[in-house]
């Protein structure tokens, strides 16, 4: 799920940036530091949409660096247990398949793939129904349900299932 929230961060800035462009430097450093990172609480920071306020800088003893408390708005992405997500399959093997939804890595075990879908090995491994009408392979798009999440400093892992109503392939790359 996406959220638009306000976060706060203490930014350290090198004295060479002090000048009339200080604000720009601060914002670009903020983007560089924060965008694309994860936090266990908020999830993956997709983009910074605005800077609300920059507090008073505090000069650090000895270094000359200045610390600014910065409040900023950002879009974050965090998967939740029970959430339905759409993801792109990255790897299919006999244990199940791996999929990605942006920064989130999802594993769907073959226990959680409908029983009528069977693994087919080969140079393009896939899960296929017995009549061949539905096929999950690399680059397929699937709709899945998250049953477990773990957010690391840089990555988000999820366990998913497609063994439920209205879940499974939503497009077929071979059909295009």
């Amino acid at each position: 799920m996406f959220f638009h929230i306000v976060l706060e961060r203490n930014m350290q800035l090198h004295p060479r940036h002090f000048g009339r462009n200080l604000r720009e430097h601060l914002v670009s450093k903020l983007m560089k530091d924060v965008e694309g990172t994860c936090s266990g609480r908020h999830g993956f920071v997709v983009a910074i949409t605005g800077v609300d306020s920059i507090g008073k800088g505090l000069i650090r003893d000895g270094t000359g660096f200045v610390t600014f408390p910065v409040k900023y708005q950002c879009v974050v992405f965090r998967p939740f247990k029970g959430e339905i997500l759409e993801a792109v399959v990255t790897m299919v093997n006999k244990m199940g398949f791996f999929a990605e939804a942006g920064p989130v890595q999802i594993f769907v075990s073959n226990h959680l793939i409908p029983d009528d879908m069977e693994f087919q090995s080969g140079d393009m491994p896939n899960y296929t129904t017995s009549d061949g009408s539905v096929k999950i392979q690399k680059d397929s798009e699937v709709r899945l349900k998250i049953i477990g999440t773990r957010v690391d400093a840089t990555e988000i892992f999820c366990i998913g299932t497609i063994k439920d109503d209205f879940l499974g392939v939503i497009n077929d790359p071979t059909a295009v």
Partner: protein
Amino acid sequence: MSLLTDSPVHSSSSDDFAAFLDAELNSNSSASSPVEEDGDDEDESNDEEAEDDNELEGKSVKRCKVEMSANIHEHGSTSHTTLEHKIGKDKSLKIDICTHPGSFGDMCILCGQRLEEESGVTFGYIHKGLRLANDEIVRLRNTDMKNLLRHKKLYLVLDLDHTLLNSTLLAHLTPEEEEYLKSQTDSLQDGSRVNLFKLDFIHMMTKLRPFVHTFLKEASEMFDMYIYTMGDRPYALEMARLLDPNKEYFHAKVISRDDGTQRHQKGLDVVLGQESAVLILDDTENAWTKHKDNLILMERYHYFKSSCRQFGYNCKSLLELGKDENEPGGALASVLKALKQVHSMFFDELGGDLAGRDVRQVLKVVRKEVLKGCKIVFSRVFPTRYQAADHHLWKMAEQLGATCNTELDPSVTHVISTDVGTEKSRWAVKEKKFLVNPQWIEAVNFLWRKLPEENYPVKPTKEE
């Protein structure tokens, strides 16, 4: 419930409905005997006659009945909810007793629960953070086995260094080697024609063994192939890229040192294949102490001088000699032939149940064909007072199908000797038997065929 509140307002219709319900209930409960149905009909006609008392009585009776039915209904629903409760409990129980067949990023792959302790075997080579428990591995192996046998395939685990290729650090190249290689690689832009690659970013020079591309192509039709190397992960992946640029063979099947479960040992526990269907190609026997029966030992491929030195050989490397293994007669071609033989025997010649077959037995049989009919006597090969039958050459000869003997007799075909001066050697010359040096048997073991004996003469010792 709504029935009851409605009844005073539209009494007649509700009564009708109640009657209908009664009829339904009766017919449901008492197997719809015609007599009772008749009685019900009479009741209905009574209702319609509209005698007050009767009606009241009838109503009260109906009410009772409706209430009863409501009760029944309620009861039913409550029982239903209790059932649901039960199912819910079962579910929670199920989650509690989930066997956690494996984990991904420390979460169970089945129930999504966070797992505290790490258990099972890591499969980092398939995907980061993936672990599987032993039961799950067994289950996967079984299902995969069926799948594979249907495609008439077996597993093949390949070693990299000295088996499929030879690598050296750039720093270990001698100046002459560098000179020569420069002339080689400069003349051909990317080195792919001579199978020589300079990998600057890992400071390595790699030479692929001749015939390796054909080998992989043909082997891939018979085997599901894995790479298993003692090198580290980036090196293994880089080599896999050289061997398999289109990622046809080794997709997510590259196992490196970091993935093994034991130090300095290779094990089939991280290979998702049943041991009875796995063949291994490696140049180091000691790495596979637990799986010797699956192993096909390869002759080491030494292209660079540093690799010879590494093993303490004083011989000249292929590069120094300015030549290479020849393609059709080289080690890989010979082994491919043996693999084909094993494969066809496994699928076509063996009778009985496919799942019950064991490739290790087949390998033994094929190996036994190589020197079938040979009777070998060793002379001055084993140290004195050494149990001859324990020597590795003796065992090797027996595995290759030869019979070994300690004493001479007319049926002996080969005398393996290190010295022409021994009694047995002289006997061999006199009786026109083959007299070969011990390298012959080793070469036969590597190349899977009886080699011309003349190429392995016993040289006279210096004193003579």
